[in-house]
């Protein structure tokens, strides 16, 4: 019996509390429908809650009806108000707290954060070790030289292949002059031939590597001039290379030897310029020759360099993202 009374009392109590909790909203007309009917039913039966309602209504009436101070002045905006603090106004507009700045900052932060995340993700999954071309471009040291040497070899091969034609032409000429064994003329033809070969090289060069082609004509002539100046004795000092001599075959030994020399010699200075200027014109080199010698050069050293580049980019982006985040948070705090 007591327990039941207790239960009833608790029920009533909780209903009181429920009604009291919404009395203010009820007064403001913010309780509708079923809830409103329930509150009204309860108020009809419960004097205490009805009393509470009256007290709240009284309170609201006092606040609503309280005498209001007359406005001290007009708040109309004058142009002077706008122009005088024009600096202040624009400063405010572009200040950190401005909506626009905040929006831009938020966007920038998001972009940098996403870029950072992508970079890290890519790094972690090893994407950059395989796909990126950036690291392949990086090597300027030993790798570059190695590449360049390969390059030179390629051009040399081409020259040697072309050589026979040149040699045969010279041979004809030398044969014609042969009766009068004048070394001078031979040398002249040799020089002519050397030039021809050089020309051919120039023609050939562009295909494997475009940059050496530029370097060749400018650097080679001096070599040719040297030959001319040095005349006979200097021009033939070294032993002709054997393979090219073999390639020429039948023509007179002396002539062939010399021709072979001219053929084998002139190409050799040619590589020189290609090896000397690697510092500057290199970058295009690897990219264009890469297909020809793809195996070794691109693979090894770049990996190390590429990774460090990725690390640097990661750190940079991370720091940038953090800085932007901080500034954005500051801007956010200043938001109205």
């Amino acid at each position, binding site marked *: 019996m007591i327990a039941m009374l207790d239960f009833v009392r608790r029920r009533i109590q909780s209903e009181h509390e429920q009604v009291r909790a919404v009395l203010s*909203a009820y007064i403001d007309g913010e309780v509708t429908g079923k809830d409103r009917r329930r509150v009204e039913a309860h108020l009809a039966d419960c004097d205490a809650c009805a009393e509470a309602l009256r007290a*709240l209504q*009284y309170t609201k009436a*006092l*606040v609503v009806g309280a005498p*209001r101070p007359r406005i001290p002045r*007009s*708040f109309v905006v004058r*142009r002077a108000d*706008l122009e005088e603090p024009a600096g202040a106004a624009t400063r405010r507009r572009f200040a950190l707290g401005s909506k626009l700045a905040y929006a831009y900052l938020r966007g920038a932060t998001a972009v940098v954060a996403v870029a950072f995340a992508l970079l890290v993700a890519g790094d972690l999954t090893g994407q950059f070790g395989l796909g990126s071309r950036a690291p392949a471009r990086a090597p300027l040291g030993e790798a570059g030289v190695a590449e360049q040497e390969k390059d030179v070899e390629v051009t040399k091969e081409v020259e040697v292949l072309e050589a026979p034609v040149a040699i045969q032409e010279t041979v004809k000429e030398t044969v014609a002059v042969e009766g009068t064994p004048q070394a001078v003329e031979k040398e002249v033809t040799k020089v002519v031939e050397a030039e021809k070969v050089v020309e051919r090289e120039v023609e050939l060069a562009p295909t494997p590597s475009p940059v050496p082609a530029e370097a060749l004509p400018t650097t080679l002539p001096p070599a040719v001039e040297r030959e001319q100046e040095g005349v006979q004795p200097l021009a033939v000092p070294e032993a002709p290379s054997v393979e090219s001599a073999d390639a020429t075959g039948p023509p007179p030994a002396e002539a062939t030897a010399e021709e072979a020399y001219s053929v084998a010699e002139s190409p050799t200075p040619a590589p020189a310029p290609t090896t000397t200027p690697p510092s500057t014109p290199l970058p295009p080199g690897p990219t264009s020759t890469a297909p020809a010698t793809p195996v070794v050069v691109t693979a090894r050293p770049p990996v190390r360099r590429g990774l460090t580049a990725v690390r640097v980019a990661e750190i940079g982006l991370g720091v940038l993202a953090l800085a932007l985040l901080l500034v954005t948070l500051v801007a956010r705090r200043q938001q109205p």
Partner: protein
Amino acid sequence: MPPGADEQALIASAQQGDLDAFNQLVIHYQTLAYHVAYRILSDADASADATQDAFLRAYQAIGQYRGGSFKAWLLRIVTNTCYDQLRAKKRRPTASLEALLVTDPAPGPSFVDWGESPEAYTERQELSRAIQAGLNTLPSDQRVALALCDVAGMNYQEIAEVTRVSLGTVKSRISRARAKLRDYLLGQQELLPARYRLRDGT
């Protein structure tokens, strides 16, 4: 003022940089804005500053108004400038009770005409002071909610939008604010002018 269409036309002109059009809006809303600010700040000077700053900001930001209740948009700016004033006040507190003195009745429909004998005038000042003192006992969030409700006459949904909180939060803020204010005023009955006392209270 202007029924909706006129108001929207004025807003549109103001958005084109027409200061006169904007000032028509100011003239219509300045009393309400000042009263809301006054109930929040309970300081005439601070309220005037907050109101002026709010209208300046409103003019500068009018391009960002995207329809909806202009009153709610404006009062959001007013409450923000009030919060700024409260923060500034916290930094350098100046308890000036002089500011609580009511100077004159405010014109307009919201003003309740209590009868204008000198006696009544004094009573009204006392009443206003008592109410303001009661409001000052409330946390600022509750005070803002109550001012928007009872001074600006906004519904809970509008208040939720202005203060950027949930409907439930508005409900509880107003409920607590009014209960606390009721307790305060019931405790000050003897200080209230006789005719503003809760009639059958004790």
